[in-house]
């Protein structure tokens, strides 16, 4: 029972999954979409409870045991608590009940962020992207978001002009930003006066810089990895390095201008061994992955059931 039932259920779902791929009839497709995009998502959402439980257990355990560096566990626990509190009660963009954006007028609070808006009706909605102003290099890491603000048509048209002016100024020079007069209060609105602790602010202020820094560290790690491989004097790693060096050097116009045949060699590496190795590996991977899937479906590989027989 303890192994047979889960096995049988798994087998049923495997049969459904295998068949649904090859059946084109709409009801089958619709149910498959429902299963994949909704029902399994709901089932999976419960696993996060266990994950979270594990995380909290891990850190409370560390604190309790006074394990090495246990003090830092407090940081994780508090950060987790505060972030979820802000997110769940304050909303993702500060639209929830908990106030997470402070300072400025309702309009002023967002003006520094506004760069385009759509649908000018009685209620207009803005697409704001602070990255456009704060850090052009960061723009790719940010997601645009919409902030609904209420104002009338006249104010909207005024605001649109202001925004266009401001954007042009920002485009021309990062230095000179003309003062912006709010069409609501008729007063100058200072640039970025508000203070936010919304989830979006945490995302932009903590998660994005941390992620980009970790990602950026790869540049250093690549160098040290290359050096490590070079020192190992391993033939395979050596070939890898030489080939990567050629590909890298072949990207530089100066190098290709002085070294004859470099460009062609680089192109050859990209066209022949690069393609062939990937093709060969992919065919093998396809067979291996399918074999693993079959092993699990047929119950030959049952590590997840705790191995053993019953």
């Amino acid at each position, binding site marked *: 029972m303890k192994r047979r039932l889960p096995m049988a259920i798994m087998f049923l779902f495997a049969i459904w999954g295998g068949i649904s791929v*090859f059946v*084109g*009839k*709409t009801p089958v*497709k619709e149910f498959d979409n429902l299963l994949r995009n909704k029902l399994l998502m709901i089932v*999976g959402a419960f*696993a996060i409870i*266990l*994950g*979270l439980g*594990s*995380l909290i*257990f*891990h850190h409370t355990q560390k604190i309790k045991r006074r394990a*090495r*560096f246990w003090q830092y566990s407090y940081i994780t626990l508090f950060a987790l608590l505060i972030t979820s509190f802000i997110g769940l009660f304050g909303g993702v963009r500060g639209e929830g009940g908990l106030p997470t954006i402070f300072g400025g007028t309702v309009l002023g609070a967002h003006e520094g962020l506004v760069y385009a808006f759509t649908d000018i009706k009685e209620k207009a909605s803005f697409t704001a992207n602070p990255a456009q102003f704060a850090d052009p290099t960061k723009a*790719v*890491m*940010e997601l645009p978001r919409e902030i609904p603000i209420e104002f009338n048509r006249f104010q909207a048209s005024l605001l649109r002009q202001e925004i266009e002016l401001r954007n042009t100024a920002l485009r021309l020079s990062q230095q000179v930003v003309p003062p912006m007069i709010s069409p609501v209060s008729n007063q100058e609105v200072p640039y970025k006066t508000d203070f936010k602790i919304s989830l979006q602010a945490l995302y932009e202020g903590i998660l994005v810089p941390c*992620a980009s820094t*970790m990602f950026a560290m*790869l*540049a*250093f*790690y*690549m160098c*040290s*990895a*290359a*050096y*490590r*491989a070079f020192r190992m004097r391993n033939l395979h790693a050596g070939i*890898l390095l030489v080939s990567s060096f050629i590909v*890298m050097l072949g*990207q530089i*116009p*100066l190098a290709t201008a002085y070294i004859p045949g470099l460009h062609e060699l680089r192109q050859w590496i990209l*066209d022949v061994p*690069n*393609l062939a190795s*990937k093709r060969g*590996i*992919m065919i*093998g*991977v396809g*067979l*291996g*992955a*399918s*074999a*693993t*899937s079959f092993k*699990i479906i047929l119950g*030959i*590989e049952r*590590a*997840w*059931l*705790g191995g*053993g027989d019953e």
Partner: protein
Amino acid sequence: MWYWFLAFVLLVSPGLYAQESPDSPAPPGESIDSEETIATGETISSEFQSSDMESDMGAIPAALPAEEIPTLFPPQNVVAIDVPDDDGQAVSVTWTPPTEGRPTRYILEIAGSDGFFEELTRTTLTEYTVSQLENNELYRFRVVAVYENGQSVSDETPPVAPRDHWMKLDEIPVILAILIYISLLLYFIQAARRGVELFIRRISGLTAVEDAIGRATEMGKPVLYIPGTSSIEDVATLASLNILGEVARRTVHYDVKIICPNKDPIVYTIAREIVKETYASEGRPDAFDPDSVFFLVPDQFAFAAGVDGIMVREKPATIFLMGMFWAESLIMAETGASTGAIQIAGTDAVAQLPFFITACDYTLIGEELYAASAYLGREPMLLGTLKAQDFGKLVFLFIMIVFTLLSLLFGLDAAGWVRVR
């Protein structure tokens, strides 16, 4: 020393800036990677694959001067058919070039139930597969030939409705390949059951597993196991979890502590079950530390940061990086290497393999990852599937060679026989 390399690369980099970098950062939250580079050199998506009709047409050159064309001829033989044996919503439209004149391009127009034609797409080819239509609704099509000096509209097609079909017969090559493979698998599993001796050669990355765990025992340090950074939807993760079972069995045997941080909550749940059950089946349920398998964080780089921390603080003797990885692979592998641990990595992510090869002591490349649990477990049935994997490779190699010969010697369209949409 390595900073000399960095210095060099920094020096040469301005020159490179002139060119487009092959991969640019993607938004966080999604897994960032340079997978696109794999796609280079692959075939063009089959929809736009050259057809016979297209080669009739060739590339469309600039049109003739206006005076030389007295009348503009419309495209001929416009035919719209429901794409056969698919899951519906698609109609394939083909046409032939005008009898005279050379249009610069064509505009395909579609009319639904309201009868109004609207532009669907512009193309220089003479075929197009329209997708995302309503099943069982009637559509008409026409093609406009665009010349330098005007346009010419073809006749309308009779109404056609996309239909959904029970079997997607367009995937027959896939179905056949799977059937061949299943029979191989069943044959070899049966052979293994009968007790046929199955030879598998030594795989160096896997013979190292035993030594690596033995080393951890001698040093009295833990073993760190990362089951990839993907979810259960990746088969590589499942393969990694199977290997985790084998590694855990050895850690119980040698009485070594295992640390297994996870990025995905479902993978965490399964990994924990596997380790716990292994302790139970090896007769030491009391030795299982519930805190040894834990959930770290679902964010890609936060996970890498956390694992880095574990590596430098716990100083594991052996590190396993098995499963699916993205850009964070090298962050973990390099930190692990700098702590002096023995590292055994394995992944089928082609874009990350070079980094594992440079930073790890042993790397399981591609399918070796899938062979690992069978190899380590030495269970006859699992070895049988490994044999099937090999013979599957032989079969497809055979098909590849024979089809190439057929197409070269007899001019047959052998590649078309295995073409799928």
